[in-house]
């Protein structure tokens, strides 16, 4: 349970002039690949497909596994996402 959400709601009810809470983490800013990330180039242009370590090493490991073949399949289809 995220008690921060509850604390925020209580403060609002008490009249604190707080901004609305954000439920989703903000989308990450553009950043260069880091250690553990996997980067593939589009065969047609400068596009890069960046698979971040939190995706490739996501836990629990017995439930999540993204294979190289799966990455290639996703990227082939994303070539049409323009």
């Amino acid at each position, binding site marked *: *349970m*995220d008690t921060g*959400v*509850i604390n925020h*709601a209580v403060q609002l009810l008490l009249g604190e002039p707080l901004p*609305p*809470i954000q*439920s*989703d983490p903000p*989308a*990450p800013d*553009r950043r260069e690949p880091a250690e553990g990330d996997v980067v593939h180039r589009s065969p047609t*242009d*400068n*596009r*890069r*497909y*960046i*698979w*971040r370590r*939190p*995706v490739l090493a*996501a836990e629990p490991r017995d*439930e*999540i*596994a*993204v*294979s190289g073949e*799966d*990455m290639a*399949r*996703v990227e082939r*289809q*994303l*070539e*049409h*996402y*323009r």
Partner: protein
Amino acid sequence: MLTALVPTRNRPNECARQLRFLHGNKFAYRIIVLDASEPENSAAVRRACSGIAEFRHFGPEYRMADKLAAAAADVATPYVVLIPDDDIVLPQAIAEAIAFLESHPDFVVAHGYFVAFHAHDDDIDMHRMIGFTPSIVDEQALYRLYNLFRRYQSFYWGVFRTGIFRAAVTAACVMQVVAFRELTVMSTAILQGKVARLRSVYALRGPVKSHAAIHQSHPLFFFLRDAQKFFDNYVLFRDGIAAFIRRGGIATPPGVPLEQRRFSIWSTPHFWDAKWIPA
């Protein structure tokens, strides 16, 4: 074999890109765009559909569930999939889900991993795994329901058997808020069969914000905003699911009233802290 339903509202560029994506991947199934845009945007959506998808316009009085129920009545294929206008459901993964359902008659829905992504200029950044909980395969319907809520992750965008989807969205129309409409679709579907999470990437979720306000789509935020209204809606939902179980003759363990049993499911902390994908 499959019909794809694409609801959209005032996002003509995203809808057009979605249709180009499906077309480029030689998506060979019927696509119906369910548009609720204002006139100028609606005209753009209609143009984007040309040669790719059927276009249907709905007035602002239609909610998402109403549109889906209306469209589902016209689906003649054995399978149906809901494709959002702003995210990506991979056509090859849809084909794999259909193949799985064809060979597993006790499953009613199949999907796979959901990955959060963001497009930055020339980069497609896959940065977070957001949908991964395993298949729910219990033989008993209420165990499936329990395991859905224990680690709640929506399968709204999975490939459904059409009859299951039709019954689910029709039941959802009775609910008054987005969160309980989604929960009704999920609950009524899983009560009727197993749900498969195939171990490959199925969909990519982008950063476009949902049309629904957070207090409409997330039960904790709804509860904090108006507890009485939340519980009123919960009771409506609970009684609807109990009636669905009784009407469908779905087997349940003896000795405990259905309403009481369902409430115990809702008390699990995982449910309240779940990551929601609003419909």
